[in-house]
């Protein structure tokens, strides 16, 4: 598939934002129900990333003025569900920021063991839930494309979740360091573990994709039962949507090179930088790595329709 920069930026930006929101809620619980400016500014940062992601997504649409229509088919389309969830999560992040900024913390429920759930915590949990749901939507957009075997598995969803969490916690660690927050250590530690987990899952998917067998062959594509079939011409000497949208520039060499690059820059180096106590640099490094990762995610995907487009002429 042709990597679309709009989608690469959308998924990496909102992934980091969702991870950051989850990290903030986790930090809030870890710190024993703290509230205040740290969380407000953090949620504002997540909100800014979400909005940047939305801006990036607009560039993916040829007719963005009708973009609102994309919320119509949420019953069947994961893309539609994502379109609904991004603004919903943005609204929740906004509320989360406002409530923390003004320090409103009325107790909503008092549990049996005496612990209380106040408004910031309840909203944090709701934001976490929405973030997780958005990870599932984003992942399923790709995982439900049956015709790309590299995408059509649960691992796509797992990877979107883990990489989003990893970059979100790394961002939270960087932010906590800049704010001199006491949560800095907690965020860094979680970011290291999540990045390592994401590395394992993504590396497994890379390996899995190199070993799988294609689902369809030219035999069933044109319905001729012959052991040797080759295309003489795809029917035209120029290019078409089908020869451009479903191939990546650069070929297999670029994919291999960038795979090594993103494994090193997106996962290994950030872990080293986090352990060395440089979370800001770790986040910047990881973000660049994840951009490359998303590029490879697209470029590595081989669509079944490519069977029909093999020979110019």
């Amino acid at each position, binding site marked *: *598939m042709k990597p679309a920069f709009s989608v690469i930026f959308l998924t990496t930006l909102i992934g980091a934002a969702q991870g950051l929101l989850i990290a903030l809620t986790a930090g809030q619980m870890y710190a024993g129900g703290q509230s205040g400016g740290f969380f407000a500014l953090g949620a504002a940062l997540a909100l800014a990333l979400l909005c940047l992601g939305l801006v990036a997504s607009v560039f*993916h*649409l*040829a*007719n*963005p003025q*009708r*973009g609102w*229509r*994309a*919320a*119509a*088919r949420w019953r*069947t*389309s*994961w*893309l*539609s569900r994502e*379109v609904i969830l991004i603004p919903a999560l943005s609204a929740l992040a906004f509320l989360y920021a406002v409530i923390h900024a003004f320090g409103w913390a009325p107790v909503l429920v008092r549990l049996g063991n005496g612990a209380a759930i106040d408004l910031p915590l309840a909203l944090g949990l709701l934001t976490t839930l929405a973030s997780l749901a958005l990870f599932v939507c984003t992942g399923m*957009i790709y995982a*439900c*494309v*049956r*015709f*790309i075997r590299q995408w059509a598995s649960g691992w796509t969803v797992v990877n979107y979740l883990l990489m989003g969490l990893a970059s979100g916690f790394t961002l939270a660690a960087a932010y906590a360091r800049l704010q001199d927050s006491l949560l800095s250590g907690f965020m860094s530690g979680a970011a290291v573990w999540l990045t390592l987990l994401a590395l394992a899952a993504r590396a497994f998917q890379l390996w899995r994709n190199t070993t799988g067998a294609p*689902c*369809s062959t*030219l035999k*069933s*594509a*044109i*319905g*001729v039962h*012959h052991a*040797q*079939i*080759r*295309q*003489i*011409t*795809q*029917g*035209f*000497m*120029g*290019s*078409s*949507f*089908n020869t*451009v*949208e*479903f191939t990546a520039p650069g070929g297999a060499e670029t994919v291999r090179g960038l795979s090594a690059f993103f494994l090193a820059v997106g996962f290994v180096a950030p872990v080293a930088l986090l352990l060395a106590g440089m979370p800001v640099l770790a986040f910047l490094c990881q973000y660049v790595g994840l951009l490359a990762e998303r590029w490879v995610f697209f470029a590595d995907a081989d*669509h*079944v*329709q*490519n069977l*029909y*487009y093999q020979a110019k002429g």
Partner: protein
Amino acid sequence: MTKKQLALVIDLNVCVGCHACVTSCKEWNTSGWAGPLPDVNPYGADPNGVFFNRVQTYECGTFPNTETIHFPKSCLHCEEPPCVPVCPTGASYKRDEDGIVLVDYDKCIGCKYCSWSCPYGAREFDPVQGVMKKCTLCVDRIYDQTIEAERRKPACVLACPAGARIFGDINDPESEAARAIRDNGGFPLMPEWGTRPANHYLPRRKTTTTLHPDQLTRVDNPLKAEGETPRPAFTTPTIDGVSSW
């Protein structure tokens, strides 16, 4: 009674790969309801254009024992179209009344997600209007009351000089299309995906005759001899007496 499902049945045994269906499809549709079908850089080194129908050519076997297959490909109007449920706006839809899969160009936002969900590569994006386009089975032609009844067929079907394309309701057992599928072993493309394509293809068929040596001699030859009869002499009398040759 099963639902009406209009479709094409394409005979791979008959198609000669002349691309007449490609050009007539482009001609009709670029100026019709689905148009334009723009071409980018049409006279340059790397032209890129939108077509609803392509004729591809495949070869089987090893030389000299090869076989050439011309393979026209357009939207198959699947009975379980995977491109329809993924559309976030509902612009992609399958008509209830005749099973044609269409795109509402006023709703399409140009996200291209439907093309990812088509294993046949049947959808082509129009970069000028910014919407996804595809074969409409000439929906603006087959119901047009101003056209004489026998010409209310898709442009590709009318154009095919070899008669390789049959148009009809494949769910009506009495239609020519359904009969062709039933009688000649019609098959769908990539049935493994469960898309149930409505368009069917008829397989290549070998036509052979067995000749026996006695069939090579004309037993009913009135002159009892092979070859040209000897020219009669100039003076030989003939029936009309005017000319002997």
